[in-house]
């Protein structure tokens, strides 16, 4: 028996942990990576191009009139000729969306930090946030239109209300999902409430914040459009939603498609921007931004 223990214990296992402890520093094959990236970009583009081709061919083959379904060329033409009307409208919609998102970020995070300060505060105030969320924004927009000083600010308030809640609820969840042992550690080292908030709770909530940001960004655009439909605003300061309705009234379907295209491009841009911000903050440490390797 002593023989067995001898061989097991007499050789101090120094080299084994050192080997096993070496972090994965070797980069994967660069050419592989390059090819992966190309495919990631080319495949979706190819699919979109195919769909546009099918659309164009089927329109020209079936002979559908332009006022029912325009072909891709007619839409491109409308985009070009109506740029002067559509682009300012796009800017206005983009401005309302981004500004309301910014307000929702500030408001959502501040309110979330306030809520997690004590269980009583949360019990008292969280239902109000839920009520604001579950009430359809289209239903309150007539009221907001009456109270708000201008149509623009009414749209802003509507978009804010919609984007606010996902950011709030994700942030509350994130601030509360801190590792209990880390909280113990902070308590052990005599951390103040503010130190715990800034050094522990807020950093730990980052992944949740990013989820809220991505959902909120998408919802803010939807709300900005829906609220403008409901507001029925008109004239020089109108956004893309009004231009959509206007094109519909005039049976200018190519322009309607062009406006729609602009809206989706704006949506994609917001999604890309929020995803990029999420990648930028999380890619060094969070599992969601890591490629799984087995």
């Amino acid at each position, binding site marked *: 028996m002593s023989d067995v223990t001898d061989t097991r214990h007499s050789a101090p296992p120094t080299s084994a942990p050192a080997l096993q402890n070496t972090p994965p520093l070797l980069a994967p094959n660069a050419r592989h990576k390059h090819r992966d990236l190309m495919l990631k970009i080319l495949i979706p583009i190819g699919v979109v191009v195919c769909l546009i081709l099918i659309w164009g061919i089927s329109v020209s083959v079936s002979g559908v009139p332009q006022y029912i379904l325009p072909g891709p060329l007619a839409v491109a033409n409308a985009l070009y000729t109506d740029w002067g009307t559509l682009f300012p409208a796009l800017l206005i919609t983009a401005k309302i969306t981004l500004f309301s998102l910014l307000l929702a970020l500030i408001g959502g995070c501040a309110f979330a930090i306030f809520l997690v300060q004590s269980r009583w505060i949360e019990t008292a105030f969280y239902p109000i946030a839920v009520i604001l969320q579950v009430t359809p924004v289209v239903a309150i927009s007539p009221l907001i239109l009456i109270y708000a000083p201008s149509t623009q600010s009414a749209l802003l308030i509507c978009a804010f209300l919609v984007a606010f809640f996902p950011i709030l609820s994700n942030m509350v969840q994130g601030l509360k999902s801190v590792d209990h042992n880390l909280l*113990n550690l902070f308590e052990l080292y005599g951390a103040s409430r503010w130190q715990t908030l800034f050094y522990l709770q807020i950093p730990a909530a980052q992944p949740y914040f990013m989820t809220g940001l991505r959902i909120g960004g998408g919802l803010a655009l939807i709300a900005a459009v829906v609220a403008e439909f409901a507001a029925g605003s008109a004239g020089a300061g109108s956004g893309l939603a009004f231009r959509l309705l206007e094109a519909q009234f005039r049976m200018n379907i190519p322009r309607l498609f062009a406006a729609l295209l602009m809206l989706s491009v704006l949506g994609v841009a917001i999604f890309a921007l929020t995803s990029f911000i999420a990648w930028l903050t999380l890619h060094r440490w969070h599992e969601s931004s890591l490629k799984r390797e087995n």
Partner: protein
Amino acid sequence: MIVPAPSLPLPSEAKRRPLVDMRAVSKMFSTGTLALSDMSLTVQSGEFVSLLGPSGCGKSTALRIIAGLGDISAGSIDWPSSRINARGLPEGDISFVFQEPTLMPWQTVFGNVHLPLKLRGISRSSARPAIIEALATVGLADFADAYPRELSGGMKMRVSIARALVTKPKLLLMDEPFAALDEITRQKLNDDVLKLWRDTGITVIFVTHSVFESAYLSNRIVVMKARPGRVHADFPLVTSLSRDALYRSSEEYRQACENVSKVLLDAIGSGEH
């Protein structure tokens, strides 16, 4: 037997005031479970105490109470040789190593070890020498800029130990720190902790459920039993050999394991009634 006597706490040190003084401490959880009943424990400076027992015997709870985490339901706890702050807790003298590495994933190794000093308002640049020294102690000086996810389980645990050491505490509390590691890494880290204890004279309270670990590391073993958690036996473990690979394969170690095992079995057996 020819090997010179190891560095045990000298008799003169016993005259100093104890580091921890627990008297008849009981702890009831909000669920109504009595986690700890009437536990008394006095730890002197320089001791390496193992709290050994089956799961659910309250050894982790006891360690948290010694750290000043959580309220006690009855009895008293004092840290006679520490400065007590306004909240009635010892200030800066105690460090804790949890069962998991408990690192902040968004911080580098450097940032994680910096934490205890940052909470005292010491900036990155003024804390740098202490952080590098603590990292060097655990053999991770080259990994200051790595993120926890880039490290293996054993290395994460070393970072956790470095963070505990960076404040130069008098008392190091370890809650089954190596339970989740493989045998080889665990032995290596056990040796590292022993070396640290010998070199710095730090006092260690080490929670474990491994007879072999407690017999290898400690010079005093407190065996606990469950339902409710309480002290079953408290005895010193004096060895003539220094604790290293030779000791691991010695008859003396085998004998010590057997003795500790007996006491533990007794604790489990008597706990059932």
